[in-house]
């Protein structure tokens, strides 16, 4: 009996303790954020979506090589001599057209490894965390801002130039080779001439020597 009364007392006590706690919380300010209207400021360095400032990219491929899951896909075309791509905001000269710069965010694991090696700081994590999609292919983000015609043109030009350069090089090589040949031939000729000259001289010498020898003997 006494035990039961004690138990009953404890029950009531714990109920009232609990109710006291909930009553206190009733007057505490809520911790909720009204999400679509307000959102949390992400701390600096938060890892979310990748962004590439394509105007600053020099196409060095360092980010793609740093990525452990190979989700960055870069294709570059060397700029021809007649165009000047300018410089990045950090002062590095740009030498490549970026015909393709795709990041597959569905594969990305937000490791941040691609951000650090970039010499121009143009690939960064932006605090943009809402990017769900219905189609997985939409996760492949295209950062290259060249139109397909532009890409084709640039590629053609680059190829032409490469061809021309190759030809020029070949020409040069040929010329060089010819020159070399010429030089060699000349050198040979000279050598031959000299040889003959020398031979004559030695002949003369020999005779004199012989003569002298003979003289000595005599």
């Amino acid at each position, binding site marked *: 009996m006494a035990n039961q009364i004690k138990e*009953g007392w404890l029950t009531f006590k714990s*109920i009232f303790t*609990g*109710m006291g*706690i*909930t*009553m206190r*919380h*009733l*007057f*505490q*300010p*809520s*911790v*909720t954020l*009204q999400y679509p209207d307000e959102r949390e400021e992400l701390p600096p360095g938060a890892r979310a979506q990748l962004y590439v400032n394509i105007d600053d990219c020099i196409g060095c491929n360092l980010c793609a090589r740093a990525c452990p899951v190979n989700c960055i896909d870069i294709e570059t075309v060397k700029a021809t001599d007649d165009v000047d791509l300018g410089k990045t905001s950090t002062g590095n000269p740009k030498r490549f057209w970026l015909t393709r710069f795709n990041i597959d965010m569905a594969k990305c694991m937000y490791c941040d490894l691609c951000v650090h090696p970039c010499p121009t700081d143009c690939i960064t994590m932006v605090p943009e965390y809402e990017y769900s999609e219905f189609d997985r292919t939409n996760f492949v983000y295209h950062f290259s801002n060249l139109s397909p015609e532009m890409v084709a043109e640039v590629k053609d030009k680059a190829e032409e130039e490469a061809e021309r350069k190759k030809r020029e090089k070949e020409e040069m090589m040929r010329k060089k080779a010819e020159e070399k040949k010429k030089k060699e031939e000349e050198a040979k000729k000279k050598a031959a001439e000299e040889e003959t000259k020398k031979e004559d001289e030695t002949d003369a010498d020999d005779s004199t020597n012989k003569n002298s020898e003979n003289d000595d003997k005599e």
Partner: protein
Amino acid sequence: MFETIGNIMAPLTAIIIHAAIPLTIILVYALVAIWGERKIAGFIQDRLGPMRVGGFHGWAQSIADLLKLIQKEDIIPTDASRFLFKFAPFMMFAASYAAFAVIPFSSDYIGSNINVGVFYLLAVTSILTLSVIMAGWASNNKWSLLGGMRSAAQMVSYEVPTIATVLTVIVVAGSLNLMTVTEMQSGNDILGFLPNWFIFQNPFLIVAFIIFFISILAESHRVPFDLPESESELVGGYQTEYSGMRWAMFMLAEYADMLLLSLLGATLFFGGWNSPFGEFMAGPFWGFFWFMLKGLLLVFVMMWIRWTLPRYRVDQLMHICWSILIPLSFVNLILVALWEMIF
């Protein structure tokens, strides 16, 4: 000819008006209470609760919910007993609604001033049990049936301590008429300043009120006794198969039931429409205000408990009722009767 129509029409209009008053109260209260419950739940859990619909703190949330529920498809399982299935929610609401007839809302207004008021109220509210079993059985679903059975067991059991504690008040008041019971509690003479409410009249009535409150929690299926619905284990209990407005009728009935039993508690223990300050702020209108205030405070406590306590198991529930509350309430009844005899 016109006279006969007039003779019929006049009482009919009176009936309709009298019927409309509690209905309006219930509907307005339900809209506020559903929103209030969600806000209270939110605040207790350090959240905000509904905020989007309407201007201030999402006040139009329950109206929006209502519109949503009206648009929902009305699904009836193929193998369900169609008539009983459709009828159960309305019967449940009718049961709690009918009981409002004897609640004295203010000194000037009571739906039906009958001598057997409390008796009528308790009798009519036991139809709730019936409708819950009806819903559970007609759904032809084992969860529903289990929910219905649990509810039957629970409500029949808790009816006993409820009636025993109501009886203690009746013993003190000496009348079954709720208006008389209320009128007996007017004035401020206890210890010179306390209102004449029954709760202050003798110590055993405080015990009676505690028992009464616990059993009305169980009767209106509120946490910690919401086993018939227990959405996490019985997938909704007896209302599993209900959708749209039929389900909403159940919810409405539950809220109406909460208000009804709270108002009964306010009438029996807290002086009904009597002002707590004697003659100050008394009168029919203020009476209504005080009465609703007391009732809503009890409703608030019910909600507060809901977001504090976990649910009981069936065996614990039965244990509380049969081995604690019922013996206690009977002993209490006898003690109150002795007290009344002595003083």
